[in-house]
């Protein structure tokens, strides 16, 4: 592989695929700047939204488990020690879930970047298994911008980019500011240089 020009630069680029915390703009009002080939973070509020979503799920599952545990404790002839163990493990699990719900969205947020350039759209993500996915603008079949109730509350949106591919038939990015998502969508589907498929 002939990597002659800018080898070090590329190495540096690759080394900080997603880990670096360069001072990205916070996307306060980024309509004019987001399509500039620079890396952007998601909206910080997306962390809160993700935490809340996770918490809602965690509470629902925890309640179901709690009912199961209570049934075991109250209605089965198991020994007291076992019942205590069941209760204790529920408490431990619930505590773990609580910590995870609080921490994980933050960690994940720290590892997600997106970039829009002349060629198309790129997402960087992954905490342990890191990936970069680039969708050329000319391969975008259609895009969706959607908002859930929680996202609407925070002015966030999800951007889904559909391609004709198999694995990456859709690339989803949750937690963009709504205007930014619309702006990227408009840019990607503006197909002046595209021949209809």
């Amino acid at each position: 592989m002939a990597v002659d020009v800018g080898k070090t630069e590329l190495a540096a680029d690759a080394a900080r695929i997603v880990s670096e915390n360069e001072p990205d703009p916070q996307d306060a009002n980024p309509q004019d700047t987001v399509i500039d080939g620079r890396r952007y973070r998601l909206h910080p509020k997306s962390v809160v939204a993700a935490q809340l979503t996770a918490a809602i799920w965690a509470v629902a599952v925890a309640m179901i488990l709690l009912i199961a545990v209570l049934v075991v404790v109250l209605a089965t002839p198991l020994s007291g020690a076992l019942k205590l163990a069941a209760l204790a493990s529920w408490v431990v699990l619930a505590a773990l879930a609580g910590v995870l719900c609080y921490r994980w969205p933050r960690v994940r947020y720290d590892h997600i970047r997106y970039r829009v350039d002349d060629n198309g759209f790129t997402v960087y993500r992954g905490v342990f298994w890191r990936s970069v996915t680039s969708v050329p603008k000319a391969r975008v079949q259609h895009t969706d911008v959607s908002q859930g109730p929680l996202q609407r509350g925070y002015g966030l949106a999800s951007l889904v980019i559909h391609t004709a591919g198999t694995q990456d038939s859709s690339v989803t990015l949750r937690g963009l500011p709504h205007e930014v998502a619309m702006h990227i969508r408009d840019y990607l589907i503006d197909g002046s240089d595209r021949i209809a498929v």
Partner: protein
Amino acid sequence: MAAIELQSEDHSSDLDLGIPPGRDATWADRRLHPLSWLFATANFAKGFIVPAILVLFASGGVNYELWASVLIVPLAVRAVVQCIVFRYGFADDEMVVREGVLTKTERHIPYARIQNIDLVQNPFHRLLKVALVRVETASGGKPEAVIRVLSLEAVEEMRGRVFGARDEAGDVAYVACESAAAPSDRSAVAPRRTLLETPALELVKLGVISNRGLVVVGAAVGLLWQQDGWWELDWTDGAERWTGSARAWLETAWGSPVLVVAFIGLTILLVAAFLLRVFSIGWFLFQLHDFTLTRRGDDLRVEYGLFNRVSRTIPRLRIQMLKTIESPLHRLFNRQSVELRTVGGGSEEADFEDGGPKTQGRWLAPMIPTSGVPQLLREVLPQVKLEEVQWEPIARRAWRRVFKRWVALVTVLTVVGAVFLDPWAVALGAAAAVLAYMHSRLYVKHAGYALTTWGLLLKSGWWERTTKIVRYDKIQTVGREESPFDRRNRMASVLVDVAGAEMIGYTIVIPYLETAVAADVSRRLYEESSRRAFRL
């Protein structure tokens, strides 16, 4: 024109779906072959007749289960009526299909969206000179339209209309990107050239190479499974009786029971392997009988099958990916297999349900002499010059990672084996480790990729060697991935997604690249594919 007028009077009134009875509706003026109802009912009854006969025999008389099957009669009538009301036709730039009795459907399929038109003919079809036609678009899953059945003239007309009209529209991007390499021989009147014919002997070789016999065995087991009582037979007892006398004789002759058991086991294995090959050979002789690949202009046509004759027209432009396969047995015969991937209608169930045979991948050439591969690929992708490809290696130190992975697996198995079975497992483990070393070295040696002016080539495997070829304009997304192990070794993989790929895993993965190289390769792929328009 009279017929068209008639149609519009017939149907524009009852097609009151809010669809304005536009110009196109009137173009749907062609009916199915007059005998279509026969095939429709036959196809419909196929699913019922076998169970009905089984029930009849199993119960020894007419019972409620048979009476229940009378319920299918109205459904069969419906199938017949559907045949009668089915219409299709050709507008300037699209095909129109109207079907349905109560729920009417009018489907407009632009010629530019049609991926291929496939024909299937079973012997009855052939006898009556008709064919089942599948019109496929990129929608994936099932074909856009299954037309059961058309006369062969009608099929030729359809192919002419669809592919002819598209040629006039001009595949600008395609012509532009290959104009230098190939003289334009895309005129519709150009003669059809045969690129490949596969005689029976080649299919026998293919049967020897392939494990397709397993399919036959699987089907046989499935059939037996449905017979009651089969599973309750005492197999070990029967086997004992068969092998018992031979065993006794051998044991007295050789004096070592272990040796005899090993001998008998080996014999059974060999016989099974032999039978599997025989089934394989039979399967291919049957399925791929008289396989021919022809080309006219930009359209390739593949025809095969003894019982069900399949004829598949694939525009070159629609090929998403090419793959050559060369197993050790292929090398023994000095042959390769070439597969292609297209979009849409490719799901195997769809093929099966619609009366066609199950396709095995999509053969471009099931067996071709190795020396003929570059020539064949050039016919399909004029830019490919397989002999001149400059292969780039993957990271050389990757062999250690491959080796480590195998050593870890071997170690676990060896320890378990040594503790629970036999200390000799350690010797076996050592032998496996040597093999793992060989494997990891060869793996790295035979892996490689090449970025050319027109696309990406990827080769992998040393035992079964494959080469994948994809043009930049068929690349949908470009990815780069780092696992924690990758990161520790400063490596990354490059992933390329194409349309019509296998659902499990990325079809095209360049593993174990140096991080900088991976970044460079993915950037170049991204830029090259961005520069080119994609046409399905």
